[in-house]
């Protein structure tokens, strides 16, 4: 359970009153209108996160401070105070005077401040935390919250949850710190083995879902984010398989002859869109998560592939080379009406619809290089974001993940929607590809 709480003696009665006001005030800020501007002109919010006070056993390496600050930076909205030494000095001043020195924090550039403490029960391994978020300009508390119901091994996730609340409170946008990114990890050179793998949105906590030696491709998230669907060659054909994450139980979804690839799940329709070549040509189909009720959507002699649902499930965006080279198209699923979306460039592929419905990301090949582009669903405001391929959206529609070989090997990166805040998330030995960002994760408490 998470609940608002009343601060006690440490922060003094004045802060208690401020916090009461904060709890009465609307919990959600209006989203900051960042527009789409060039990266250098967008002002980041400077926020300081002090080390959390341990009430009892200590966690290693100031876990909360490190994870939360990193999450806030990854979100694309925040930066730490420029001078870490000044921040540390100010933190010590707070402790010495037993009161927050708002003016000092503001003087070193921090307009917001996060303080907290945690308690570990050594018998039950339960961990609880209390967090306060302050506006140093207004010298007021913006958030006070207590977090319970977490086990010690979930401490990182607890920190991510705190990060999300801070991001939401200040920016109005939901944080994605406790989401995950699935991708295909090349586990041997030259593609002999590729494993479906997961990382947290900060690139930590790498786990693999498939065994060594298996060849897999095109993963996507399924029903309520509790299942994943991907292509596997384990039965000598690229077949589509489902996996329930809680127990890793698998089931065959589509095993038609030829390709069974590029699944996309619609929560609204409870259907998978995918590419099959069962009739000797790559076409778009939809079916249930049990493989039932297959419906064919396209029927022509060119390659139609890479379908992805619109957020409301009424349309699909996909790639077709019917004009001689890959271009992005949109289909109204009910009427089967199709329209071409991209007209610039000769190779536009791998479209991905933002969860808020406002953008479609795709990659363009030009001069042998791939770049991520954004375009409105009505075909306007097309713009290049960054170098890379295979974009996928974070559930808050403010970040994208993609893969790029800008270093020696192909790795997964994230970037803010305006092209700023590029971060490398994976560092696998033989490369990573086909990222798929999870939907918002159900709260653990």
């Amino acid at each position, binding site marked *: 359970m998470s609940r608002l709480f009343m601060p006690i003696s440490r922060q003094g009665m004045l802060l208690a009153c401020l916090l009461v006001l904060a709890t009465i005030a609307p919990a959600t800020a209006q989203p900051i209108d960042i527009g789409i501007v060039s990266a250098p002109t967008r002002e980041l919010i400077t926020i300081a996160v002090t080390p959390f006070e341990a009430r009892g056993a200590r966690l290693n390496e100031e876990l909360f401070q490190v994870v939360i600050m990193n999450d806030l930076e990854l979100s694309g909205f925040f930066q730490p105070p420029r001078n870490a030494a000044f921040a540390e000095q100010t933190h010590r001043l707070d402790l010495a005077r037993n009161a927050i020195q708002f003016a000092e924090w503001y003087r070193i550039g921090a307009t917001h401040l996060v303080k907290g403490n945690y308690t570990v029960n050594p018998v039950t391994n339960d961990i609880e935390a209390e967090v306060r978020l302050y506006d140093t300009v207004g010298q007021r508390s913006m958030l006070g919250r207590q977090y319970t119901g977490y086990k010690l091994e979930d401490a990182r996730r607890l920190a991510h949850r705190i990060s999300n609340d801070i991001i939401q409170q200040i920016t109005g946008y939901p944080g994605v710190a406790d989401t995950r990114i699935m991708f295909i990890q090349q586990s*041997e050179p*030259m*593609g*002999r*083995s590729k494993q479906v793998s997961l990382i947290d949105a900060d690139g930590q906590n790498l786990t693999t879902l498939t*065994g*060594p*030696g298996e*060849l897999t*491709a*095109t993963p996507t998230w399924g029903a*309520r984010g*509790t299942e994943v669907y991907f292509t596997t060659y*384990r*039965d*000598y*054909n*690229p077949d589509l398989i489902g996996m*329930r994450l*809680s127990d890793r139980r*698998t*089931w*065959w979804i589509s*095993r*038609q002859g030829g*390709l069974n690839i*590029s699944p996309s799940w619609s929560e609204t329709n409870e259907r998978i869109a995918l590419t099959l*070549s069962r009739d*000797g*040509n*790559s076409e778009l189909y939809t079916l249930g*998560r*049990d*493989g039932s*009720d*297959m*419906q*064919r*959507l396209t029927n*022509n*002699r*060119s*390659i139609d*592939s*890479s379908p992805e649902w619109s957020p409301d499930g009424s349309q699909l965006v996909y*790639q077709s*080379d019917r*004009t*001689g080279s*890959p271009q992005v198209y949109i289909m109204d699923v009910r*009427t*089967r*009406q*199709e329209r*071409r979306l991209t007209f610039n460039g000769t190779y536009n*592929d*791998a479209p991905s619809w933002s969860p808020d419905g406002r953008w479609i990301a795709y990659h363009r*090949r030009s001069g042998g290089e791939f770049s991520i582009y954004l375009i409105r669903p009505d075909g306007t405001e097309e713009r290049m974001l960054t170098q890379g*391929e*295979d974009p996928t959206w974070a559930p808050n529609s403010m970040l994208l993940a993609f893969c790029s070989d800008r270093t020696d090997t192909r790795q997964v990166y994230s970037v803010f929607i305006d092209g700023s805040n590029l971060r490398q998330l994976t560092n696998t030995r033989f490369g990573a590809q086909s990222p798929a960002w999870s939907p918002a994760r159900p709260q653990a408490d």
Partner: protein
Amino acid sequence: MIRGGAIQWLAAAGSLGVLLAAALTPGCQRGAAVTERAAPPPARRPAARPQPPAPTPTPAPPAAEAAPAGESGLTRPANPAALGEGARMLVGRTFEPVYFDEASAELNGAARRRLTEYARWLGENNRVWLTLMGHADTAHGLDFGYNLAMARALAVEDFLVGHGLARRRLYPISFGAAGAGSGELGNRVELMGFMAPAGRDEPAEVSAEPQSPPESEP
């Protein structure tokens, strides 16, 4: 180009890994899926994908096709690669890859000449089944690469069928750009022969039916 190219492909592009993985992966359903029922007549595939015609920006939408799934007994031929390395060694020869032009699934002159020779040999050695492994070079996006590689494998299949080979002896499969390499090396179809088991005229059928998923979690 490469003597023993198939072996190189096995090592490089995953077939051996797939074979081993299928044998070693816990929970692999392959064994349970294989059936020995009589094969239905092989489905006819449409002709190889030709180069797209002149631009047609918004073609008329086709009508929805009736659902073909849910039919009981839905099967597909088994990939001859499932016969294993022993069956491959019994063939006694390897096949050089067929190369394609960049971004094309059309067979060029060199490819046709090579395949014509293979068709002749296969006609005289009708106990050999072929896995046709399509690749696309890394210049393509991953997703498009899978589709392009499939179109290439299908083009080879159709050519061989057009030269008298039974379609049931051929198993086209796409590996996209998985280990394909760049340039000409990536734009290829590998042909891997497997000796048919004694007394069997065509590959077994394997179930292509979906399975019941576990309960979806809230």
